[in-house]
């Protein structure tokens, strides 16, 4: 191993930390803005009449969208604390390392989701440009009926 910063106790102590729940009201307009931003013409995400006659009966969220904002206060509050601790430990630069999500039920406009986030793990690895840290945040989304709709994992890279 080359010399470089190491994970501090302050960073390690954050593994397992949980966020305040985020409440997400899934709006038709927010879904359409998202579809517009990625330039996705799929009528299931923007045409109410079309969606009504589909098997979903309502506008649904495209894969990867679980309501606005994608980055929300509870989870961001949690990851901000980790970022701050990592910056102090010598990893000030941030990159979005990737995303993984598993969908159990469609998300329809009008749904209200509650999102619970947790720091699942923080690890460090030797990269091409020195040491990097990987923070895995797991978020579970539950709808207004209490049904699990999505489980997501995000990787934040700090170096």
């Amino acid at each position: 191993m080359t010399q470089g910063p190491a994970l501090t106790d302050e960073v390690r102590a954050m593994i397992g930390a949980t966020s305040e729940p985020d409440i997400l009201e899934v709006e038709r307009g927010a879904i359409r803005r998202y579809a517009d931003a990625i330039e996705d013409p799929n009528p299931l995400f923007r045409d109410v009449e079309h969606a009504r006659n589909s098997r979903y009966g309502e506008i649904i969220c495209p894969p990867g969208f679980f309501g606005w904002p994608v980055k929300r206060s509870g989870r961001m509050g949690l990851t901000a604390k980790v970022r701050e601790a990592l910056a102090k430990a010598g990893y000030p630069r941030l990159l979005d390392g990737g995303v993984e999500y598993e969908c159990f039920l469609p998300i329809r406009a009008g749904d209200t989701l509650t999102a619970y986030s947790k720091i699942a793990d923080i690890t460090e690895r030797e990269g091409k440009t020195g040491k990097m840290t990987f923070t895995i945040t797991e978020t579970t989304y539950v709808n207004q009926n209490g049904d699990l709709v999505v489980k997501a994992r995000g990787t934040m890279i700090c170096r």
Partner: protein
Amino acid sequence: MAKQVYYEDVEEGMEIPSLAKDVTTQQLVKWAGASGDYYQIHYDKDFAQATGLPGVIVHGRLKSSFLGQLLSDWVGEEGMVKKVSVQHRGMDFPGEQMTCKGKVTKKHVQDGEHIVELEIWTENPRGERTAPGSAVVALPSRG
């Protein structure tokens, strides 16, 4: 919309129709607003360069969402995107064309569902895979 694809139409090793994206700085701003991700490296060139980047870069999550579109286009209204995993490995820049691609790796029936697994990725004009990943979808069956 393309016509509905069925489980029986799919073979392991086949590529699915690709999706080309010409990302502009304007699209990055639209994405920032639509997603709520206002990190300045995606729209403020001076800020991006001050952090050591050559210029503004495309959001990793925007690339993941393009791959989501690739999949929802392919599975159609009767299919379902069940699982997506994407690594944001390389940087992409506005002004360069990005192509989203997918290839079937496996198909099987599980608990009555017709499941197809895929390798998915975004590719830059030099043929480099900047966001590789995998996906699991369910398709309708003619059976």
